[in-house]
């Protein structure tokens, strides 16, 4: 009788509102599988930088759209493995630290588990739904299939049609950034809400940084609400998504995304910039 801990989500009765340093130190250990999610919008930069300051290493980083934040984590050697579907600087081009790790193994080799967006989205959805896999139409004829062992096939028991199966994603920790939390730790985010709900519900523990603490959440059109009892820790971190943005609070710093190419192209310059702007912070 009782619960199968592998498959059933265990969560506290309610989120604890704590400083970011504590939220990260109490959830992320070396070697963990961590998803810092966000689809261009609400990227949890501040939480990712806290990972760097706490010198977490051997992480498996999960994200549909690894961008500058993951370029920084990879370039600083935090990551052993990357599970992803699109690794670029949106609208700008390459992520040079990601490329350097994959092309030259610097500062360390980076294992890749590579999917399409549809595949990653369905993997998170299966994790959130407590299923071991998801069914989809996808990858047919793509060279991703022979390189990714979390893509297989499944046959429809009604029609006999062969479809694609992808295995569930269950991060040890999911970290997201949102606009608001109330005093109880209930969280609201809006704008492009991406995969954040599934990423939180699929994870064994969840950390949310927010722009603002409010007395009561006033429901917004298109908002995702995450009840306090689905979250472990909430940290109040205004501007915690910069240079990404928090719809209604901050603007995306597109100039920085463009500038990142020059900052990150060379190893030494990148390291110096990180020392000055992230580690020293």
């Amino acid at each position, binding site marked *: 009788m009782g619960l199968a801990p592998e498959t059933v989500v265990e969560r506290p009765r309610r989120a604890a509102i704590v400083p970011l340093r504590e939220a990260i130190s109490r959830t992320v250990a070396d070697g963990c599988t961590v998803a810092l999610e966000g689809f261009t919008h609400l990227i949890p930069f501040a939480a990712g930088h806290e990972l760097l300051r706490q010198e977490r290493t051997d992480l498996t980083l999960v994200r549909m759209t690894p961008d500058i934040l993951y370029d920084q984590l990879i370039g600083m050697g935090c990551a052993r493995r990357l599970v992803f579907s699109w690794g670029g600087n949106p609208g700008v081009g390459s992520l040079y630290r990601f490329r350097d790790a*994959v092309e030259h193994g610097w500062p360390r080799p980076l294992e890749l588990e590579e999917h399409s967006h549809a595949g990653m989205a369905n993997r998170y959805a299966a994790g959130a739904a407590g299923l071991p896999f998801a069914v989809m139409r996808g990858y047919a004829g793509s060279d991703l299939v022979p390189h990714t062992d979390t893509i297989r096939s499944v046959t429809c028991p009604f029609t006999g049609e062969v479809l694609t199966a992808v295995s569930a994603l269950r991060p040890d920790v999911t970290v997201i950034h949102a606009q608001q939390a109330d005093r109880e730790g209930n969280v609201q985010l809006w704008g492009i809400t991406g*995969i954040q709900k599934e990423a939180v519900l699929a994870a064994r523990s969840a950390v949310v940084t927010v722009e603002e603490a409010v007395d009561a959440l006033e429901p917004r059109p298109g908002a995702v609400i995450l009840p306090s009892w689905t979250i472990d820790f909430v940290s109040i971190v205004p501007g915690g998504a910069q240079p990404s943005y928090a719809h209604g609070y901050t603007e995306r710093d597109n100039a920085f995304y463009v500038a990142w190419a020059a900052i990150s192209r060379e190893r030494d310059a990148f390291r110096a910039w990180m020392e000055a702007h992230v580690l020293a912070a």
Partner: protein
Amino acid sequence: MSSQLETQRTAGSEWTPAEMMTVAAARELPDGATCLVGIGLPGTAANVARRLHAPRLVLVYESGTIGSKPASLPLSIGDGILAETADTVVGVVEMFNYWLQPGRIDIGFLGAAQLDRFANINTTVVGRYDRPDVRLPGAGGAPEIAASCREVIVVVRHGPDKLVESVDFVTSVGHGAGRGERERLGLRGAGPTRVITDLGLLAPDPETYELVLTHLHPGVTLEQVRAATGWELRVAEPLATTPPPTADELATVRAVERTRPGAP
């Protein structure tokens, strides 16, 4: 090659090859169609089309925005302006499962790092996957966009390193090895029906599904195109010339480009 051509064409001409490409791409988008807009060039062309002949073009972005009407070009497909101006914003699970997968979207509008003679798309690696010469961003939404949209239009700058005999990695299937392969793979959309470059237009041969040059842009020679194509390019008979950009088209392209973040 493109940049050399750029200078050459710009000298004494009233438009650049890049502008001609954007105009030609925009012309392919019918009013009222639903269009899943990929990263980069497609976004510009789709927003030009919406300001010209297709005010009711429904722009869908894989970030979850449906019916976006951005007044200025976004840098990324997740910029706030896409959500603010959308008819609705959905999560990405819903976007891929309920909107893209069942074939609701008329046109998938994609770019490519490499495109081969059967319109297969590579956005993953140049060289070997396990030891790449250049690691590219990867698949994103493209494999399922190419699979599920009713048809696919590819926009790519012409060059022998881009239009290649066969891609180093098939990220998204166009017509595979040719006739019948999409059915065999269970891909339900028609696949790439048009390829738009800065030199001309290509389309799959209805028999073999090999890409064939159907149009040259004004002032471009067949020799330029052959030199910029990585395979023995077949040419349609007769070979047409793309109508030059109208003043209105050109003005709109330039107005839209001026709204791009970081534009001069």
